[in-house]
C-alpha cells in the first residue's frame, strides 16, 4: 500500500513540470547568480590584512599569558603583516570602537578567560574566534596537566601562533575561511526549508476539506498515516534528488570548496529537507487555518528561520548565542548552517553530530504531531 502510494505520487510529481522546475532548477539558478556576484568580490578582497581588535582587561590577575600572547601576535614577523592590531582600552571605549567598526571584535578578559564580543559575522570574526578557542584549549590542557609549570607560557604561545599562521595560511591559499561561503550555505538551507511547502501539499491531498482528492482518500479504507507517509516519501525523494543536483553543481561545476566530503554535506541536506517537510506537514495539518495562510506561515518560518541564523545579516546568530542560545539549538536554518560550518571551518564532528541529531529528533516530533492531528480529523465544514 505504502509503495503503491509512493510510486504514483512520485509519478505525479515528475509530471508536474512547475514543481519539478522549482525543486531542481531554481536553486541552481540562484547558485549561479550568487557565484557571478561574489566572484568579483572575492577577487578584490583576497589576501590577508591585520585584524584590529579591542581588548578589555577586567581584572589585573591572570592577564599575563594573555597579553603576552596578544603582543606576540601583534608583531610583524619576516616581512608579513601582524595578525592582530590590539587596542587595550576600557570597556566603554571598546564598545564604541566596535560600534564604529574600528575593530573587528572586542575581547574581554575576565578570570583569565577571554570572551569574544562581535557585532557581525565574517571572516575576521571567525579568525579571532579560532585563535581564542585555541588559546583557551591550550590553557586548559596545560593548567590541567602541570599546574605550576614555569614553561607553560612558551607552550601557549607556540600553540596559538601556530594556529594563527595556520589560519592565515588557509585564508591565503584555500579561501576556506571565507564568509562568501555563508551565502551558499544560506542557499542550501533555504533549499532544504523549501520542503515546508511540499510537505504542506502532502496534507492538502489527504484532507477532505481541502481537496476533492483528499475527500476521496479520506473515505477510502487506507490508513491516513500510510497515505501521508507515502506522499511524504515521494516528496522527500524529489528533495533528495534536487539537493544532490545542487551540491554537485556547487562542488563540481562551480568548484566551491565547502569543506567536508560530499557525503557529509549531502547528509546535512537530507536531514535538512526532512525537517523542512516535517514542518510543512505540521503546519498543513493545523485545523481551521486557510490554505493561503498556511503557505504564508511556511514562508515566514523559512525566512525568519534563515534570518535568525544570520543568513541575511551576519552577527545575529552570535547575538542570539549570547542572550538566548536555545534558539540556535532549535532553529532549523541555524542547525543546517552550523552543521555545514562545523564541517567547513572547525572540523568539529561532535558539533556536526549534535546538529544532525537535534534535527532528526525535531523532525520526528513535528511529523508525529502533524500526523496525529490529521489522522482522525472530522470537519466542521467541507
Amino acid at each position, binding site marked *: *500500500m505504502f509503495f503503491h502510494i509512493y510510486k*504514483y505520487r512520485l*509519478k505525479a510529481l515528475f*509530471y508536474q513540470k512547475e514543481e519539478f522546475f522549482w525543486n531542481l532548477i531554481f536553486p541552481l539558478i540562484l547558485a549561479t547568480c550568487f557565484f557571478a556576484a561574489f566572484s568579483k568580490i572575492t577577487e578584490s578582497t583576497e589576501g590577508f590584512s591585520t585584524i584590529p581588535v579591542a581588548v578589555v582587561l577586567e581584572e589585573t590577575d591572570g592577564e599575563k599569558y594573555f597579553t603576552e600572547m596578544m603582543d606576540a601576535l601583534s608583531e610583524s614577523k619576516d616581512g608579513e603583516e601582524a595578525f592582530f592590531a590590539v587596542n587595550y582600552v576600557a570597556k566603554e571605549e571598546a564598545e564604541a570602537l566596535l560600534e564604529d567598526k574600528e575593530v573587528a571584535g572586542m575581547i574581554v578578559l575576565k578570570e583569565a578567560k577571554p570572551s569574544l564580543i562581535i557585532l557581525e559575522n565574517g571572516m575576521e570574526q571567525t579568525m579571532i574566534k579560532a585563535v581564542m578557542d585555541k588559546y583557551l584549549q591550550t590553557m586548559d590542557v596545560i593548567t590541567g596537566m602541570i599546574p605550576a609549570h614555569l614553561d607553560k607560557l612558551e607552550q601557549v604561545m607556540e600553540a596559538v601562533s601556530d594556529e594563527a599562521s595556520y589560519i592565515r595560511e588557509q585564508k591565503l591559499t584555500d579561501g576556506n575561511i571565507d564568509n562568501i561561503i555563508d551565502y551558499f550555505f544560506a542557499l542550501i538551507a533555504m533549499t532544504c526549508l523549501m520542503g515546508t511547502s511540499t510537505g504542506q501539499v502532502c496534507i492538502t491531498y489527504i484532507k477532505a476539506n481541502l481537496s476533492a*482528492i483528499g*475527500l476521496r482518500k479520506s473515505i477510502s*479504507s487506507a490508513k491516513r498515516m500510510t497515505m501521508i507517509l507515502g506522499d511524504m516519501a515521494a516528496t522527500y525523494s524529489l528533495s533528495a534528488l534536487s539537493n544532490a543536483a545542487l551540491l554537485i553543481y556547487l562542488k563540481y561545476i562551480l568548484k566551491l570548496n565547502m569543506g567536508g566530503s560530499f557525503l557529509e554535506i549531502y547528509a546535512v541536506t537530507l536531514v535538512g529537507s526532512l525537517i523542512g517537510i516535517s514542518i510543512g506537514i505540521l503546519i498543513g495539518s493545523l485545523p481551521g487555518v486557510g490554505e493561503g495562510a498556511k503557505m504564508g506561515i511556511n514562508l515566514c518560518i523559512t525566512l525568519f528561520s534563515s534570518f535568525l541564523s544570520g543568513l541575511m545579516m551576519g552577527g545575529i546568530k552570535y547575538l542570539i548565542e549570547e542572550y538566548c542560545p536555545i534558539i540556535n539549538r532549535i532553529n532549523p536554518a541555524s542547525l543546517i548552517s552550523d552543521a555545514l560550518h562545523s564541517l567547513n571551518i572547525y572540523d568539529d564532528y561532535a558539533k556536526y553530530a549534535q546538529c544532525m541529531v537535534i534535527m532528526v529528533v525535531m523532525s520526528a516530533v513535528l511529523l508525529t504531531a502533524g500526523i496525529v492531528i490529521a489522522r482522525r480529523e472530522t470537519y466542521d465544514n467541507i
Partner: protein
Amino acid sequence: MSESVIVVENLVKRYKELIALDHFNLDIKKGEIFGLLGPNGSGKTTTINCILALLKFDKGSISVFGEEMKPDSYELKSKIGVVMQNVAVFDELTVYENIDYFCGLYISDKKLRKQYVEEAIEFVDLGEFKKFYPKKLSGGLLRRLNIACGIVHKPELIFMDEPTVAVDPQSRNKILEGIVELNKMGATIIYTSHYMEEVEQICTRIAIMDKGKNLAIGTTDELKKMIKRNETISIEVLEIAENIISLIKELPHVYEVTYEEKMLKVLYSGGKHNLIRILDLLKNEGVSFGRVYSERPTLNDVFLEITGKELRD
C-alpha cells in the same frame, strides 16, 4: 422487510448560523436504489458527508451496516464506494493509473487489482481512453472516470452525489444504466439528484428533501398518491360558457377547473374514466374543442404541492 444498511435519526447539522439538516431521518434497506431528491442547497451532499463521518454534526445518530461510522472505521469503509459531486482525479495520472491508484487504496493484491481495474474500465466504457490524461477528456468521459474511481473496489454500498450534472444525454443514459446494473449485481445505492426524471427512472424509493428536512419518503407511486392531484386534463377550447364550467366542476373527482388563454385545465384527484366523461359532456353541450392532453402527476407536482414551489430553480 430486509435489513437496514443506513439508519439516520434526528440528524442536525449547522454551518454556523445556517441549519443545513434539520432533524433529518432516513432508513435505507439493503438492495435499494435510494433517491435523495431535492433542489440545490437542500442538504443532499451534507447528508452524505455526515454519513461518511467526514463532517461533524450537532445532533442525532447515524449507523452504517449497524455500526457507528468513525474516521478510522477502515473495515466499514472498505465496503463503501463514493462518487462525489466534484470530479476528484489526478490530472497527472492517466485514466488507467487513476483507477488503479484508487483501487490500490482498498486492494493490495496486484492480480486482483488489475482485474478490478479492467472491469471498471469496461463498466464505464473507457477502454479506448486508458492512456489519456484527464485534461484530454470531455465532461461526460471525465464523469465516467470519476465513477470508475469510486466503484472500482466493488463496494456493497455506493453513494452517488449528482453524478450526471453537466453531462451530455448519451453519457447520462450510460451512467443511469450503469447504476441499475451495479444494483443488479448486489450493491445498495444512494443516489442524489435534482433531476426528478432520473430519480423517477431508476430509484426504488425516494426521499424528497428541502431545506434540510425530509418531506416525504416512498416509491414513486406512493409519493404520487400522497398528493391530491392524480390527473390533469387540458383541452384547447375557443369559447366556453360559465355554466358549462360549473357543470364540469360537478363531474366526479374534479377539484379544480381553470380556463385561461383558450386552454381549459381540469384537475382530478382520482377516478378512471375522466377523459371520456369530460369529452362526452363537451360534445353534449355543443362545445367544440381542439387538442386534448392528459397528464399524470410528476415528482415535480409532488414537490410543488408539498413545498409550494417548483423543484427546478
